[in-house]
């Protein structure tokens, strides 16, 4: 794998507090890194230092080439422009031709269930809807590095599924993903590397135990008035009139009970291939 960014002895001090202390990190093309840690541990600061937006107090970030970063912020700002006006301008800045931009936006609006809100001023939109616009603006053109700062905050479950699909599609195109998040299932769905940020240090976490733990594939058939148990929604894929879920072994019994409670019938179960 080709190294594209190298952090050499990066330190950062905010208000006399050491957030990062001589951190060394190599980032490779196509890698997907999740930065986890408590609130205020320095995850967002890490992302911004990597992008060159924040100057470190010590150390240096070395880029092997000039990289195109796109950024999905934790809180997308409200503004008087509508989503369509904003994205049209972003597309112009990206150099996307008008017709291509319009088609691309139309598809992304539909994917994220935003079609009816594109002409509403963004100051009147909810936090979750704004967050979707924050994601869409980053997807208009393929970047080399995509920074994601708590990308799923405030988003509905269906949009989260779409987001994960889109991110995995970018990974297949060798886009480097750098993400700060708390959600375990997001880390497991998207990341090949997990770095724990805390007490000034950034250390890799071994996720192979989790990755290669035994999993089952469950098939369910929808009954009348069936609904989704929200906590298992990220594991579920719709398949015709039913659905299919890939779940760790230790969660499988509970999931079966919840799905039956929510009006589903278990139709099949098998070991998942790694």
């Amino acid at each position, binding site marked *: 794998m080709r190294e594209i960014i190298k952090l050499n002895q990066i330190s950062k001090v905010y208000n006399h507090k050491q957030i990062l202390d001589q951190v060394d990190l190599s980032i490779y093309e196509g890698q997907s890194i999740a930065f986890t840690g408590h609130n205020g541990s320095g995850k967002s600061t890490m992302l911004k230092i990597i992008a060159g*937006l*924040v100057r470190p107090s010590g150390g240096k970030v070395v880029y092997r080439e000039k990289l*195109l970063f796109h950024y999905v912020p934790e809180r*997308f700002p409200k503004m008087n422009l509508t989503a369509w006006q904003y994205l049209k301008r972003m597309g*112009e800045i990206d150099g996307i031709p008008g017709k291509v931009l319009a088609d691309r936006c139309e598809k992304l609006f539909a994917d994220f269930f935003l079609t009816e809100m594109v002409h509403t001023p963004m100051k009147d939109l909810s936090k979750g809807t704004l967050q979707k616009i924050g994601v869409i603006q980053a997807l208009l053109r393929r970047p080399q590095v995509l*920074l994601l700062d708590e990308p799923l905050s405030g988003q509905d479950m269906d949009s989260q599924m779409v987001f994960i699909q889109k991110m995995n599609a970018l990974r297949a195109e060798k886009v480097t993903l750098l993400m700060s998040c708390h959600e375990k299932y997001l880390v497991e769905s998207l990341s090949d590397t997990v770095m724990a940020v805390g007490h000034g240090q950034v250390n890799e976490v071994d996720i192979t135990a989790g990755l290669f733990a035994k999993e089952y594939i469950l098939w369910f058939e929808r009954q009348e008035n069936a609904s989704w148990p929200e906590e298992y929604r990220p594991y579920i894929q719709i398949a015709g009139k039913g659905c299919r879920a890939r779940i760790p072994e230790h969660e499988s019994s509970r999931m079966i009970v919840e799905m039956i409670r929510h009006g589903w019938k278990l139709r099949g179960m098998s070991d998942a291939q790694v």
Partner: protein
Amino acid sequence: MRRFSGLVKYQMQQYFSTSRFAMPFAVLMILLYSIYSSRPVGVVDSLMVSCVFLFLLMVWIGVTACDMEHEVSEQILILRVQSAWKYYSSHACFLFLIGMISSAIAILFPVIMDLCSRGQLFERPLKAADLLYGFPLMSVSAFLGGALGEISHPGLNRNRKTTILFTFLLAVTAVTKAAILKNVPVLAVLLWVVPPISDVTAMFAGESCFSVNKCSTAFIILLISGMIWTVVKIMGLKKKGF
């Protein structure tokens, strides 16, 4: 070039989607009316007073344009265009265009007033040369004002109140510099950093016509000063980061 123009268009659209131009525009109209309501007025004098008003107006607009900036949208755009210089330069360009719009209003106003008063507004007939010299001078005065207003960018100083007070103090000092130095010449040691709007208007004191030499000199002084303030702002923001 396309990216740069895209940035400028975005900022123009952002600005005009708010009502931030309404008050400065209203004040501009009132100021222009106050200059041209009594007649006859000197051509050069009135246009130079307009330059000063435009300078102050654009300081105001520069400050309110900085208020409009959001850290996150700045970050998104700087990464998108892969250059903080490009982004902040586009902001300066956007303010320059606002200045030109304001200058166009300021140069057309006396023309319309003169037509309405059947050529009796000025001490002498208004010539095309007056407009050709006046408009660029107004535009660079406005540019200088906008550049000064930009130093109130929240990225340079988080204390908004202090920053705005300081900016307006600088602006007022710039306008009254000649009078201050007449009474306290030793302050020249400090006041050389202040925008030279007062020095430029003093160059045209008592003149009945614009001359090429003076106008060129004034234009260059104001342009370079505006560019210096712009560069100072950009370098300050780049150094500080987010």
